[in-house]
């Protein structure tokens, strides 16, 4: 037994070393200038060109993505519970398909479609649409891409939440008390789904804030792209910003873990396929 314990502590110790050293070293790297501790890199962040605009863009994109994801998924998943079971396989397949297409392949497809604008569609009203969704102030095309990429996690989060609620009974009870269908949904079903809605929103938020591939290749500069862009000239600050953005994301995910029960958001297939 003693030998087994020793073995276990060796495994855990090595794991702790591997997972903690890069984090510690990043902090050291970002505060250490010629062996003196200085928080200069952190204090300069806000004043650096592009920080505020890229962060604001990332947050706006995240807000729009979360809103659209919930607007699309909540009615659909509730309807599946209410008596459209034949649609369930359809929705499940649709929400899992994005897993099979890696983000880089997805963005290759998107940029091909965007090129159709000037190439074939210049005389049609669709051309204006294609121009409009590429507006550099708020590239809606990114929102569309992120909605697709977030679908698998958000669907699973909502579906798991709905499994714990007896939706038909809830709706029937609300209806017998005189509620309209909309009231039943808004005032009886949604409050019971608060955990699942938060879950889906946080996962989407983490995805959008960290997303680099699609934004970079379509030529936009939200937060993750900005960090890479400044890393060439300001290595120390890019590490400092990484440390900060990590802390923010982790606090969000830990809060999610605490809110949704004990265990951390068990990362399903989807995340494994897309995040890095």
């Amino acid at each position, binding site marked *: 037994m003693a030998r087994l314990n020793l073995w276990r502590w060796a495994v855990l110790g090595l794991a702790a070393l591997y997972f903690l050293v890069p984090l510690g070293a990043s902090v050291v790297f970002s505060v250490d200038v010629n062996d003196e501790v200085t928080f200069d890199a952190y204090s300069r962040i806000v004043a650096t060109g592009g920080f505020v605009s890229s962060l604001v863009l990332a947050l706006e994109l995240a807000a729009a993505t979360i809103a659209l994801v919930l607007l699309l998924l909540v009615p659909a998943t509730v309807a599946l519970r209410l008596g459209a079971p034949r649609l369930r396989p359809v929705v499940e397949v649709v929400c899992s398909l994005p897993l099979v297409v890696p983000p880089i392949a997805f963005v290759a497809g998107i940029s091909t479609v965007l090129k159709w604008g000037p190439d074939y569609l210049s005389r049609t009203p669709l051309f204006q649409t294609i121009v409009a969704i590429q507006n550099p102030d708020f590239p809606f095309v990114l929102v569309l891409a992120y909605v697709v990429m977030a679908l698998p996690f958000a669907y699973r989060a909502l579906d798991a939440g709905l499994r714990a609620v007896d939706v038909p009974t809830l709706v029937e009870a609300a209806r017998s008390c005189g509620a309209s269908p909309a009231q039943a949904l808004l005032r009886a079903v949604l409050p019971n789904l608060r955990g699942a809605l938060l879950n889906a929103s946080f996962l989407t938020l983490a995805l959008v804030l960290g997303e680099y591939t699609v934004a970079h290749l379509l030529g936009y500069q939200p937060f993750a792209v900005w960090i890479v862009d400044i890393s060439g000239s300001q290595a120390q600050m890019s*590490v400092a910003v990484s440390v900060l953005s990590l802390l923010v994301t982790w606090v969000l995910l830990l809060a999610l873990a605490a809110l949704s029960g004990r265990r951390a958001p068990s990362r399903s297939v989807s995340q494994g396929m897309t995040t890095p």
Partner: protein
Amino acid sequence: MTDALTRAGTATAAPSKRRRRAPGWLAVAPLLVVTAIAFGIPALAMLNGAFTVKDQATGATSYSISNLTGSLQGAYLTALLGSVKLSALSAAISAVLGLFLAQAVVTSRSRALREAVLTASGVLANFGGVPLAFAFVATLGNSGVLTQRLALKDTGWNLYSFSGLTLVYLYFLIPLMVLTITPALEGLRTQWREAAQNNGATHAQYWRHVALPVLGPSLLGGFVLLFGSAFAAYATAAAMVGSSVPLVTLQIADALSGNVLVGQENVALALSLDMVLVAGLVMAVYLPLQRRSVRWLA
């Protein structure tokens, strides 16, 4: 009173039952329309482009498989194989290390330790992309903290290489494996081990004849999941190594940014199609295995 209530109940229930089918479709339709536009059109465009060849001189287009064959030759083939090699190696290492780590946690009786490791794994498995790359650059890069303190340069260490990238990928793959394999390890009943011991089996025999066969589907499923995750990774590699290590994601990005010969854009789409096929294969292996391993946990 009761009579009125029941009548009201049946009055509302009957039409709502009849109306249910229409709202079902109506509620799902926006989801289907938006995915058809945002996902379907780019996917079809990719498929179409992968098979389209444009004649540079005349501008005429025709369908052929020359992009696909082109994507399986020369530098593209090297990149594809590089990706497969990197993903397979890092997935294999992570599967083994993740199994050890999960086993160490599951067999310890400390509930706090178990919760802490699982929560940390959930967080770390989500840690990919740009910040991960910079954390390792700060640690083991050319002017990284460890590189300088331990004078690793003299030993020939180079983070911006195949082995450096493997080391970085373990950082999100091991936690992913821990999350995937822990339920299966928890499904191993102590009675099975006791039964094996009572029949005179050694520790090694128990693992070879009982534990590993039961864990088999979960282990293999975990491995292909990690493989797919590593195969699709782009941001980490792009932020860290640029394009000094040949990877298929980096090649596609280069081709999309126009860093290659004119007329090669569609090869990027063909490469994307190659990636989709590999990812599809991974899912085709993973899903049945996952279903199979669930049987033991019931």
